[in-house]
């Protein structure tokens, strides 16, 4: 039985604000990247690495560790930033994002740095891989959780729903899907490009135990992670309602910030906003 320790919500929130600043600095330095989708998933990933995920930065290949699969690969600045924060690799390497030669690829390469569990960038593939690990673990009686973070635009990919059927058909309760429902995709609002609502109903209809939360409310996030872990016989989906570009007023819900780097003055303004909290 896993222990549920009391989360320090305040500390996690502070960490998230710091991480957002690191992410924007990385993308600005790289001169390209995806700030909007990185900022929307920041609270979700901070609550995972800072609270729920069983992991050990000193032993990145620890066989009993929980796994985090970032399926929306363009959010990798957030992943790199939190891995560096926990010491998986030196923080100085963050400045090499997207610049040849670098371990920090524009979209993740499996094990290019310790802690990056899967490649991503061709959308919709993470959940299938999460299922595969869960099937292997079941044969080996290995008890670990596999978290798969996807975007709301990403789940327009048909493979996601093939995988969603596989998870529930095989009752893969080790699998927890987190949907960063940040409302926007590259060319506009998800509901205009191709509507995916009602999101929670869809996952329920596919046989998933589904929770719907405010993906920027740290207390709700940790509560959802705790509840999901208690579910037996069913995979769990956490539909996290988020804001693309969260934390920076001029980026929030603005599709223009899907895939461009902030210029120096924009970075300055963004960092000021984030440090004010």
């Amino acid at each position, binding site marked *: 039985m896993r222990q549920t320790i009391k989360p320090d919500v305040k500390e996690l929130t502070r960490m998230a604000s710091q991480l957002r600043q690191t992410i924007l600095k990385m993308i600005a330095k790289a001169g390209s990247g995806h700030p909007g989708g990185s900022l929307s998933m920041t609270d979700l990933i901070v609550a995972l690495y800072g609270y729920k995920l069983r992991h050990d930065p000193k032993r990145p290949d620890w066989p009993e560790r929980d796994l985090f699969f970032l399926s929306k690969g363009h959010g990798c600045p957030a992943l790199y930033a939190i891995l560096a924060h926990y010491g998986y690799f030196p923080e100085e390497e963050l400045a090499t994002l997207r610049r040849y030669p670098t371990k920090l690829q524009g979209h993740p*390469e*499996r094990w290019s740095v310790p802690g990056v*569990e*899967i*490649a*991503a*960038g*061709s959308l*919709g*593939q993470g*959940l*299938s*891989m*999460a*299922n*595969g*690990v*869960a*099937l*292997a*673990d079941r*044969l*080996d009686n290995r008890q670990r959780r596999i978290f798969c973070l996807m975007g709301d635009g990403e789940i327009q990919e*048909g*493979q996601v729903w*093939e*995988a969603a*059927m*596989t998870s529930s*058909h*095989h009752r893969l309760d080790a699998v927890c899907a987190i949907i960063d429902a940040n409302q926007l995709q590259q060319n506009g609002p998800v509901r205009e490009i191709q509507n995916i609502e009602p999101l929670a109903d869809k996952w329920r209809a596919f046989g998933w135990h589904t929770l719907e939360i405010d993906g920027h409310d740290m207390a709700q996030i940790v509560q959802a992670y705790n509840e999901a872990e208690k579910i037996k016989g069913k995979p769990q989906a956490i539909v996290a309602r988020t804001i693309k570009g969260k934390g920076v007023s001029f980026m929030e819900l603005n599709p223009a910030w899907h895939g461009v780097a902030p210029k120096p003055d924009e970075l300055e303004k963004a960092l000021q906003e984030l440090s004010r909290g």
Partner: protein
Amino acid sequence: MSATEKPTRDGFGEGLLELGKTHPAVVALSGDLEDSARAVWFKKQYPQRFFSVGIAEEDMIGTAAGLAIGGKIPFACSFSQFITAKGLEQLRMAVCYQNLNVKVAGSHGGLSVGADGATAEALEELTHMRCLPHMTVIVPCDAMEAKKATIASADYPGPVFLRLGRNPVPLLTKESDPFRIGQAVVLRQGEDVSLIACGILVAHALQAAEQLAKEGIHARVINVHTIKPLDTATLIAAAKETAALVTVEEHTVLGGLGGAVAEAVVQNHPVPMRFVGVQDRFGTSGDPKDLLRAFHLMPEDILQAAKEVLRAKQEHLVR
């Protein structure tokens, strides 16, 4: 089916079954075609180690990648067309880019599905698989070789693609014949022309060589069961020693065995070549035997190509 004929997919099924015994890490998955691909024998013997993922090839390949991440040696199988084409993006990113230990078996390769027609006939998959970094591509010539290739692939780290056929074909190899991934086999010696074949058409190449011998032409026959990594040493030696090459495959002539051989030879020892294969077209419905004739993949077609290339060789030598 005579005692000396067997489909290569049966060899795969037998090999997989044996791996079940010898390799606890081997698991299998299919998208509702485990009967066709003969993985059903493994499924019956090891139900816990077989996973059905429904008719969903993209998810099947992704799931196989996950099983490999989890330490298993997954064999994903389906019709060759569907698993390689529908699963191509997953094979590229999840399997090959991550260099995972995933084995992919495509049954009903080539024209062997026959009456079902063009949509299920796999004629381009060797090209698709061959250009993926890290991928190994194997086309067994008979059921015995298919069994050996299946077993060998489990101990061969990284992604492997096995192309299998549906229909009974002659057993050309014996249990005692050595099989090594990446090592072509010279089945018949000859100095006039080389017939370089893979898969079920190796038998046709041997028949063509027999016929050529009656006309005093000595053809070397090479079974290139592994298209990648290619046994370039054996092929360059054939180019140097016979100075005339014919490639033979139940597959498009664009980028498969013929392309691979040409790439190797032209950089090292260019000689006249001819390509027996499917000429940039789709398949069609019919008895597979009739289709092999209609698509000019018979021993007499190889014979004709050999004579053509011999003429080119003469002109080449005169010049």
